[in-house]
């Protein structure tokens, strides 16, 4: 059958199961928008293209499917960049469709022309410039395949405007994807597995470091089974939160710069690190010079270029975490390791005593208290997805919201892009229409994507937005306080009256500035059927502890002061 390029874009998406896209129209993508009217795909108009990419990213994380965003040429496409870079760093499967000027004009500095495949090259897993309509369907099929397979990531398809108008024969099912150079390795070799099992079974002080790869490969069951069968404690990365219930006795919880001290001490003292779908980010390791010096390292990742990149692996296994864990599982043996667990418990002992930020008797309102109240409110009726923006509140959300269910915490991990929270929640809300979606944001990040309140209102998304307003760009302020002699530079931030702003958008706005008000506003937000925003007026100069200062060893932490 004959189809125009614009129709092929939608026909291909329908065959890939796409039901919702996030975008913003413009000149070079108008034929695609015209054709959209004939297809049952829901288009969400964002208020800035960056947020289309973040929404697609959030949709992808929450659904496990490919998220799609659309933009026009030039400024539309360049505005996507931060969201694409975020999806790249955090391995989120995203397909971006951008309009491009007519193929005859490419390279002429035409109106709204930018070399989009050029500028997106380092922030996409792969990208395409389509100049002939005959190529389009094959490119679409490849794009979806590449985005979701192997280590997932963003793929951009830049479609020239004349290609959108032109017609060709279309038979999606008959297209064979030929990617001779794209062969993700899915499981470990017999030799690698054998060596790994020997190390695991012989280890006295092992620790599993579980990352985002566990979630991406759906290896939650295998992870828990392996940890239980071999009796090994687990620590998660920021994006590994939600791989195993946080109340599980083997889950030590988050490691790294703002991980609890006993977790980092365990990593530093371990004789074996079993790293699963994580990439030894500097926020996880502290200085590499002193990182886990007594440990042998088994590193499992689907991306061969991650192995040996930051930490030398004694055994590197390239493969999908689910497959590799299934290969390891039958051969690992239970070891008591009583000394090891006793040691970790000893390190853990004073942790609660240091937890002053969460105390009822402290008069001021701290973010951890708010997060903990949200958790308590939801506890038991636990259908909630938490999307966090970037900054202090993000770390507190990671520390204080204990996730019992899988994949309920989304945030910009690798890129740390402020402003991601609200648009990612928009995407997550479409992926999980029956679930309560909360945004935790600071007054800085929230104002970066504040216009998306209009998207929330237009789409009537029942998102609950908790803005932690401390009047500072808190994490930068914290570093200036602790590392730069309290020379505050460019961190004081004013905000509009968020309650009035919410109301202006037709969203229920509330405020809480005292502890006694917190539970009430949370309950009210939860019972309100539509979107709500709560302006939490919090302690201005609170710090996230523990903290590993940049360049310091993982065990040299600034602890919370003792109560």
């Amino acid at each position, binding site marked *: 059958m004959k189809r125009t390029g614009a129709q092929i874009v939608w026909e291909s998406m329908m065959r890939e199961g796409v039901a919702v896209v996030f975008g913003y129209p413009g000149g070079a993508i108008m034929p695609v928008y015209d054709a959209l009217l004939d297809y049952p795909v829901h288009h969400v108009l964002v208020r800035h293209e960056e947020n289309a990419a973040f929404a697609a990213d959030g949709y992808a994380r929450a659904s496990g499917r490919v998220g799609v965003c659309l933009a026009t040429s030039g400024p539309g496409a360049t505005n996507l960049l931060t969201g694409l870079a975020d999806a790249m760093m955090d391995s989120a499967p995203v397909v971006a469709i951008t309009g491009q000027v007519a193929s005859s004009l490419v390279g002429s500095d035409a109106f709204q022309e930018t070399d989009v495949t050029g500028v997106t*090259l380092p922030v996409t897993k792969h990208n395409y410039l389509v100049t002939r309509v005959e190529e389009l369907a094959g490119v679409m*099929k490849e794009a979806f395949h590449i985005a979701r397979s192997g280590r997932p990531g963003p793929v951009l398809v830049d479609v020239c405007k004349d290609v959108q108008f032109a017609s060709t024969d279309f038979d999606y099912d008959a297209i064979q994807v030929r990617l*001779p*150079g*794209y062969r*993700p390795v899915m499981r470990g070799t017999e030799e690698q597995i054998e060596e790994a099992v020997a190390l695991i079974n012989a280890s006295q002080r092992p620790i599993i470091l579980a990352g985002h790869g566990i979630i991406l490969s759906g290896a939650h069951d295998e992870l828990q089974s392996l940890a239980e069968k071999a009796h090994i404690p687990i620590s998660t990365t920021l994006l590994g939160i939600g791989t195993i219930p946080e109340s599980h006795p083997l889950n030590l919880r988050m490691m790294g710069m703002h991980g609890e001290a006993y977790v980092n001490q365990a990593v530093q003292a371990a004789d074996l690190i079993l790293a699963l779908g994580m990439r030894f980010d500097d926020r996880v390791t502290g200085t590499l010079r002193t990182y886990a010096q007594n440990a042998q390292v088994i590193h499992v990742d689907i*991306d061969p270029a991650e192995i040996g*990149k930051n930490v030398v692996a004694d055994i590197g296994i390239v493969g999908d975490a689910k497959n590799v864990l299934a290969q390891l599982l039958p051969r690992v043996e239970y070891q008591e390791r009583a000394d090891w667990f006793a040691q970790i418990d000893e390190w853990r002992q004073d942790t609660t005593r240091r937890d002053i930020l969460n105390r009822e008797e402290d008069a001021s309102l701290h973010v951890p208290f708010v997060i903990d109240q949200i958790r308590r409110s939801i506890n038991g009726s636990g259908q909630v997805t938490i999307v966090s923006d970037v900054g202090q509140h993000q770390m507190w959300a990671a520390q204080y919201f204990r996730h019992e269910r899988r994949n309920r915490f989304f945030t910009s991990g690798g890129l740390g892009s402020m402003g991601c929270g609200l648009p990612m929640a928009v995407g997550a809300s479409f992926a999980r229409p029956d679930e309560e979606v909360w945004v935790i944001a600071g007054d800085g990040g929230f104002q970066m994507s504040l216009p998306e309140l209009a998207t929330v209102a237009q789409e009537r998304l029942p998102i609950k937005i908790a803005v932690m307003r401390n009047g500072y760009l808190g994490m930068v302020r914290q570093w200036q306080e602790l590392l730069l002699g309290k020379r505050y530079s460019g961190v004081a931030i004013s905000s509009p009256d968020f309650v009035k702003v919410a109301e202006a958008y037709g969203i229920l706005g509330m405020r809480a500035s005292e502890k006694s008000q917190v539970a009430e506003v949370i309950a009210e937000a939860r019972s309100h059927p539509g979107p709500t925003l709560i302006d939490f007026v919090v302690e201005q100069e609170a710090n996230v502890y523990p903290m590993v200062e940049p360049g310091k060893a993982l065990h040299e932490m600034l602890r919370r002061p003792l109560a």
Partner: protein
Amino acid sequence: MALVDRSSDGKETTRVLVALVENKPGVLTRVASLFRRRNFNIESLTVGHTDSPDISRMTIVVDATKTNAAMVERNLYKMVNIIDVQDVTQSPAVMRDLALIKVKIDGQTRFEVMQLIDVYRAKVVDICSDSMIVEVTGPEAKVNSLVDMLRPYGIIEMVRTGLVAMVRGSGYWSGMPPENGNGSPVETEPDIVSLGM
């Protein structure tokens, strides 16, 4: 490719990688962008045709004192348009560099230079009264040696192609996975053995 970190156990200060790449627009940009982005230190990169019009071949010489060649190999491997990568440093391989050297001559030195060139089995490909262009092919060390010998006469201009390499013997390296019949690669899981991992 293999996962063993060969660059740390070898003593070579340079490593030679050979990559088969799809002959598509932008592939060279992708490779160059990768090297820049990952801060890889590359001595030379040559690109040329193969016997298949769909496939080009790159030879990449890595400065192993500054860059981990295994990381270069793995990053190249994961690129969609790169069909396969081999580190041929320790393989029995023919490695050749070609140089064109324009050297000063006069009536006295002309025959001296030509004798020198003869020793290196190099060729004079252009000559005029005060200069000649010498063409030399060989392993980099041989080319370097000739360049050193010619330098005292005065090198006016020089260009080198960078190394190209091919493993000896009758083996054929297509880089392609084994045929899987009529199935599309979308449906199949790659054969790990063929990848040597």
